[in-house]
């Protein structure tokens, strides 16, 4: 098969997969929402959860995007140096977004900065976002897809703390964001925290943290302990679904980390809304695929 034909095949599969992630939530998110719904006891919280589940059923039944804000598409690729379409990948992902935009349909969410016009195709300069991890001696390609909606993009924040502020400062930084912006970002939220050496290293980690399955933990024992402390702490604030009050505020808290300069603690927070439209798919060199996020989906 020629590279062109293979690229077209992968583009079509990705377009279908993207459209599907706008209509159906990943298995881990659905399971967690069900768990939280069952644990809430106020009629208000229960009514909101019931609406969410009815909405997700209707979205599949009527084949429509479940939320009108289908976000800016973001891809995190872990691509083997031996993957046959490594050269074509970024271009074919962009074309797949355009195709999904017309097929799904998705909302036109790409506004060119400075020229300030909507491209009408849902892609633009640098959108969709593609983050690359190159994997040596591998011939497969692993892709996380994410629809970054406006509401849950807004709480995003990064800064560099002085070491004197310590992890106590990290705690304050994350929790302050929950009561100022998190409230309106459609809780229960998935909270991603990056702890690293500078703003951009922490910021990227805080987004990658949102790609981890709900219920997973950081490998470092202290970081995992802090994930749990933050999760319990934000739950105790009592934001509940839609910030209107309830026993639980988050789907989870994920921390990703690197080493840091002795004089700095880079910290960032990113949140995903309850409608966390994340996909995870792996292609082998022959374009056989495995979908890890949605068990019942075939392309």
């Amino acid at each position: 098969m020629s590279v062109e034909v293979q690229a077209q095949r992968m583009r079509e599969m990705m377009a279908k997969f993207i459209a599907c992630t706008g209509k159906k939530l990943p298995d881990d998110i659905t399971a967690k929402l069900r768990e939280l719904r069952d644990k809430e006891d106020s009629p208000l919280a229960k009514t909101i959860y019931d609406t969410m589940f009815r909405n997700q059923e209707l979205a599949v039944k009527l084949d429509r995007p479940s939320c009108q804000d289908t976000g800016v598409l973001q891809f995190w690729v872990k691509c083997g140096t031996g993957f046959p379409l490594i050269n074509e990948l970024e271009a074919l992902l962009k074309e797949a977004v355009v195709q999904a935009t017309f097929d799904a349909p998705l909302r036109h969410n790409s506004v060119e900065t400075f020229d300030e016009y909507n491209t009408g195709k849902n892609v633009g300069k640098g959108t969709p976002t593609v983050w690359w991890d190159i994997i040596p001696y591998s011939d497969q390609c692993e892709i996380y897809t994410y629809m970054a909606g406006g509401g849950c993009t807004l709480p995003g924040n990064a800064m560099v703390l002085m070491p004197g502020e310590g992890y106590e400062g990290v705690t304050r930084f994350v929790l302050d964001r929950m009561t100022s912006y998190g409230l309106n970002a459609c809780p229960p939220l998935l909270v991603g925290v990056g702890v690293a050496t500078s703003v951009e290293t922490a910021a990227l980690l805080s987004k990658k943290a949102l790609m981890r399955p709900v219920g997973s933990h950081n490998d470092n024992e202290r970081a995992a302990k802090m994930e749990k402390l933050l999760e319990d702490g934000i739950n105790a604030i009592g934001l509940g679904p839609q910030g209107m009050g309830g026993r639980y505020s988050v789907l989870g808290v994920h921390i990703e980390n690197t080493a840091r300069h002795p004089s700095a603690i880079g910290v960032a927070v990113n949140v995903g809304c309850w409608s966390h439209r994340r996909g995870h798919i792996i292609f082998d060199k022959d374009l056989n695929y495995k979908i890890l996020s949605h068990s019942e989906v075939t392309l």
Partner: protein
Amino acid sequence: MIEHKDGKTILTTPISAEDIRDIHIGDIVYLTGSLTTCRDVAHRRVVEEGKSIPVDVRNNAILHAGPIIRPLGDDKFEMVSVGPTTSMRMEKFEYDFVKATGVRVIIGKGGMRENTQRACKELGAIHCVFPAGNAVVAAVSVEEIVQAQWQDLGMPETLWNCRVKEFGPLIVSIDSEGRNYFEEKKVEYNRKKDEQVELISRQVGFIK
């Protein structure tokens, strides 16, 4: 008109100040009748330019939203997807908007503040939240798009006047006494946050 049916409180347009008098923050209601999407520029036209709104919203409801619409030809349209947008953007206009138009129910996302509270208390109105992210539930409650005005504003900003049936759940965030659910909740959230920061900080002293 207000009625209670199968455990649901349903407001049917036209709605009077009397109808909403006993509705309080945190209550859940549903709307039947006339609902018009109305957001940033439409508010600006009414308030800053003093234009009269081409859809009669008096005693009816507006929705802060920019929907996805499918044109069916012959000036007919279908609601594909509609969800509330952040109401706070309309806050600076809302008192004057309510005064000029006589709208009774304002629906959106998240809370609003003093300006809208004053409108609700003085003029007899309520602000409600439709749970965001539920665009299909909202769209299927729209029975018909009756008319589309100010189409020059583009799809998101057009006044889409809809006939809806039991549109909701709508959670009352400001009532006609001027009480504000989110502002009251925020005090509680911030207090609990400070407690939690202190509690967690005692357990994360990793730098020694």
